[in-house]
């Protein structure tokens, strides 16, 4: 019964979405506004029906209704309720349903928020989003149906993939990934509306700014959480391996980042109209491509749940997206010609342009490295993979160039370089870069690329810090406390300084990656109870090994004492978890994190009688700052997108309540830029 209700909700959502798209397009074309309103209502009905299907699925999961096909595949009576709740995205069909739900929610919020604005363009936004929804509904009603009937219903199921049950980050990574991936549908829909109506000036990039930032920050968090998960669960001691699946998430992130920067050039200078449209089309296409890569079973990975027939459907949809989008761009070639011109090579917009090119070069090299094995296998049948050295060699120099530009762009004005030579503009930043390099050398940094990264980080950080420092100093001289001065300074142009906060997060990440990747020490040894292993400053002693039966798994645990300079620091317990549904145990390393370095303890093997345990011990400097950088970037985005109106009212209130402010009104003009 449950299965039928869920399926029925999806089956009804399909005609509703189709009607909504059609009514919006016809209503928009003929300026029949009642029809447009009807299309909008259909969109909201679509949101309701998809939500109903999701609720039904969650109900079936939580009540262990194994007559529902999806529940029979991922549910189990032993699985803890929280894991059962998030099992919605633990396998193929559920994850597609979840994707559709996220799209529906975005559609609902977008349609509702903009109901009074962009009257002529919005119908096409609605229609585009609904048509994307139609595709996912077709997948769900056909080969990706989660609501199949199982008769007779099994008494119990296998539970979700052990790898996904094993860590709480699985509650964070998939939802943020979907919110990020699907979030780019909204700016894409606005771009399509701009093309269809022929209004390709900056209105649409202004309208989508917050949506793009939201999608971007979700995708950032997801990539971070995915890396963190790999670090905490897979036991090999790293967070990034240039796996095709990782690249699939990174590519739209890179193009999306390029888009975020180049839209500013369009807003300020009316340049890059066509380029921005092309970027957002590419970003959206890459999200669909990424879904194809991870969900079609062409890759063997934890993301490829199983061989499935949905691959061709996704490729077909990708083709439709690319053909329709390209056709629209070609149709609108004339209005897409930008009136603005680049008039100085040393200007903010030139820096943005170069950064854009670097982002595209990165994406291009990643794309070729990612699809080459697929093409080679399809063409010659040979199974190959592109090794990590290719990605490292190709991307590290470009990434270094991007860090360099973060120290150049902010110091350059729009339009022309104006007064001041390179020396006066960048002299101190260069000095800061040299100091950072020397400092890194003293602290133990080695190697060309790591040292260059530290130096460029110092360079870029100085450019930003000196601007912020000067502004804050002016306010402090007026008698503000430094903290208030900083807060007010940032509030004066939240878009700009929110961006700076995001950039400092990126710099933090660059330092953390360069340090942890290049300055690690790894030791692996078989230890008997009582024996120790020396790694870096640490001494790791095996105290014993024991087994433990837990609710949904059996664990073999190594008890380990960590000491430094003869002093006991900590007791840790790396383990191997055995799930009943899988032969191979899931490693669960124990990570001792400090601000300076991580001590990563992983049990890789043990003797059946407990006489010895093989431990892999890795000391990695500064890893924790990579996770912190994710938080910094998120904070920066929040500063940049927080609605201006409410904020102003609040600060006005505060001015009345807190007496010591003598300043009449902080300059707010720039905030409106």
């Amino acid at each position, binding site marked *: 019964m449950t299965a039928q209700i869920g399926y029925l909700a999806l089956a009804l959502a399909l005609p509703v979405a189709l009607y909504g798209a059609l009514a919006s397009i016809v209503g928009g074309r003929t300026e029949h506004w009642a029809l447009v309103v009807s299309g909008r209502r259909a969109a909201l009905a679509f949101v309701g029906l998809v939500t109903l299907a999701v609720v039904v699925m969650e109900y079936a999961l939580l009540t262990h209704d194994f007559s529902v096909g999806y529940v029979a595949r991922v549910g189990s009576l032993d699985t803890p309720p929280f894991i059962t709740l998030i099992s919605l995205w633990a396998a193929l069909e559920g994850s597609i349903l979840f994707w559709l739900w996220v799209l529906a929610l975005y559609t609902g919020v977008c349609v509702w928020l903009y109901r009074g604005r962009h009257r002529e363009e919005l119908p096409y936004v609605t229609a585009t989003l609904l048509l994307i929804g139609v595709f996912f509904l077709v997948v769900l009603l056909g080969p990706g149906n989660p609501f199949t009937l199982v008769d007779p219903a099994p008494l119990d199921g*296998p539970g979700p993939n052990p790898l996904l049950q094993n860590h709480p980050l699985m509650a964070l990574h998939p939802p943020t990934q979907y919110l990020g991936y699907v979030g780019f549908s909204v700016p894409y829909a606005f771009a399509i509306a701009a093309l269809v109506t022929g209004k390709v000036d900056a209105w649409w990039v202004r309208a989508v700014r917050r949506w793009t930032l939201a999608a971007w920050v979700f995708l950032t968090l997801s990539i971070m959480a995915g890396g963190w998960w790999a670090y905490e669960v897979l036991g090999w001691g790293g967070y990034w391996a240039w796996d095709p699946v990782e690249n699939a998430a990174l590519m739209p992130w890179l193009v999306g980042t390029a888009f975020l920067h180049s839209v500013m050039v369009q807003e300020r200078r009316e340049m890059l109209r066509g380029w921005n449209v092309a970027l957002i089309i590419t970003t959206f296409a890459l999200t669909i491509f990424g879904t194809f890569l991870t969900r079609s079973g062409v890759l063997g990975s934890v993301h490829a*749940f199983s061989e499935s027939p949905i691959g061709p459907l996704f490729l077909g949809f990708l083709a439709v997206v690319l053909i329709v989008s390209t056709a629209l761009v070609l149709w609108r070639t004339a209005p897409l010609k930008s009136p603005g011109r680049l008039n100085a090579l040393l200007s903010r917009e030139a820096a943005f342009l170069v950064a854009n090119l670097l982002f595209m070069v990165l994406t291009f090299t990643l794309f070729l*490295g990612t699809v080459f094995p697929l093409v080679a296998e399809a063409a010659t049948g040979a199974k190959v993979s592109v090794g990590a*050295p*290719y990605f490292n060699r190709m991307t590290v120099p470009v990434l270094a160039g991007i860090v360099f530009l973060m120290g150049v762009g902010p110091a350059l004005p729009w339009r022309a370089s104006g007064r001041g030579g390179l020396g006066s503009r960048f002299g101190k930043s260069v000095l800061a870069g040299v100091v950072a390099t020397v400092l890194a050398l003293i602290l133990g940094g080695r190697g060309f690329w790591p040292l260059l990264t530290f130096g460029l980080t110092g360079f870029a950080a100085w450019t930003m810090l000196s601007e912020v420092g000067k502004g804050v100093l002016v306010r402090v001289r007026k008698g503000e406390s430094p903290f208030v001065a900083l807060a007010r300074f940032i509030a004066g142009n939240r878009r700009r300084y929110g961006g700076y906060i995001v950039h400092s997060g990126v710099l933090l990440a660059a330092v953390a990656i360069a340090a942890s990747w290049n300055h690690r020490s790894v030791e692996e040894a078989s230890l008997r109870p009582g024996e120790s292993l020396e790694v870096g400053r640490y001494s790791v002693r095996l105290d014993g090994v024991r087994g433990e039966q837990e609710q949904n798994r059996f664990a073999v645990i190594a008890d380990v004492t960590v000491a430094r300079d003869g002093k006991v620091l900590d007791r840790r317990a790396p383990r191997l978890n*055995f799930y*009943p549904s899988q*032969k191979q*145990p899931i490693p669960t390393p124990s990570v001792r994190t400090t601000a300076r370095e991580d001590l990563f303890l992983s049990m890789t093997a043990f003797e059946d009688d407990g006489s010895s345990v093989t431990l892999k011990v890795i000391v990695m400097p500064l890893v924790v700052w990579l996770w912190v950088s994710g938080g910094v970037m998120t904070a920066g985005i929040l500063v940049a997108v927080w609605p201006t109106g409410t904020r102003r009212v609040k600060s006005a209130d505060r001015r009345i309540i807190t007496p010591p402010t003598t300043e009449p009104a902080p300059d707010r003009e720039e905030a409106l830029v």
Partner: protein
Amino acid sequence: MSRRTRTIVGAAVAGGALLYLVAAGIGGNLVYFLTPTELIAKGQMAYGVSFRLSGEVVPGSVRWNAEAVDLRFRIRDEQNTIEVVSTGVPPQMFQDGMEVIVEGSLDSTGVFQSTNLMVKHSNEYGPGEGEEHPEKAYEGLLTKGDTT
């Protein structure tokens, strides 16, 4: 040259250079997946080149010297068998008859020198024949550790 042609020529040169770098980079970093039969078919060409070799661990062939951290075994496909020497400790699940991937190269004596031993993860998981009983297999650990 007009401004436009200069732009086009510049873009073409830059694009060509990038394409060359990418092609050379991919070409130099390809890792082939081979079965023992495919590796033997390569003959002389296989020596000293890095490969990933996949196959089944021949039951009874595993020799593990924990003191010297030296692991020797043979892997096979339907037709052929290859001797493998691996440095590093084998993972917990390493056992006779399982599918593994070894990364490394063939030395001049025809022994595959592996630098990385991976257990082939099956994407399919589920109850049934794969069902193991670790709590039974490692009973000794359970009683020893559990004081309750």
